[in-house]
């Protein structure tokens, strides 16, 4: 997408950054008049996407960043969560349930995961602001 993001955020890829992103996303949702359930779903999906970055993207210990771009439309919100890490690599996690991506898939209208040629991962998520769960 060549359109400029309505909101962009770059934060260190550390656990404490996840709440900052979640609160920012929550504020965007409320400004757009999203319903309560959509706000909750978008906060959860954004959290899971950013958690994946913190846990898996920079597994070699390099300091890295999480980049979040938000694109608002009348009835939907698109979030792009980007890192510049090692790409989608399975990593052992002490007590992980492997629920992150399945949750994101369940919460989004559309989900696209790209691994750009220049490295990293881009997770693009689109949400309805008024009815977050697509009809079965």
């Amino acid at each position: 997408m060549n359109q400029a993001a309505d909101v962009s955020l770059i934060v260190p890829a550390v656990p404490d950054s996840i709440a900052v992103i979640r609160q920012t996303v929550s504020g965007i949702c409320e400004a757009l008049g999203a319903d309560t359930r959509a706000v909750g779903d978008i906060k959860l999906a954004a959290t899971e996407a950013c958690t994946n970055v913190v846990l898996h993207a920079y597994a070699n210990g390099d300091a890295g960043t999480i980049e979040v771009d938000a694109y608002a439309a009348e009835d939907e919100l698109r979030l792009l969560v980007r890192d510049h890490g090692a790409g989608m690599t399975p990593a052992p996690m002490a007590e992980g349930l492997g629920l992150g991506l399945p949750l994101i898939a369940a919460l989004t209208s559309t989900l696209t995961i790209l691994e750009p040629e220049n490295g990293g991962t881009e997770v693009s998520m689109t949400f309805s602001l008024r009815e977050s769960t697509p009809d079965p």
Partner: protein
Amino acid sequence: MTGAGRIEATAADGGWPVIALSGEHDLSTAPELRARLHDLAEADAVIIDLDQTTFVDSSILGVLVGGLRRARERDVPFVVVLGDQAHPAIRRIFELTGLHDVFPIYPTRGQAQAGLSRQGETA
């Protein structure tokens, strides 16, 4: 930190031990929750109270499932308080993940205490 939650562990005045989460919880508070559960590794039961919790993610669910698994290995109860007044986001993630069918769930802390006491009497 914005949105950070609190974790309070109480020995509960003669009752069963309770870990109560308030506010929002994610990867940043998961280690503290894991530590609180570790402190109760020898307890005869554990109650997780989510009535004042406004957000949890899969990191927190992972810690709770780990606690449930270890409790089952010791054959002790590990229950969750999640009532009608709980935040919709908490009920939502439990339903989405199917964990509302995995954890024994009580509507109030008092009912959890009473339920565990009845189990103790019949055990």
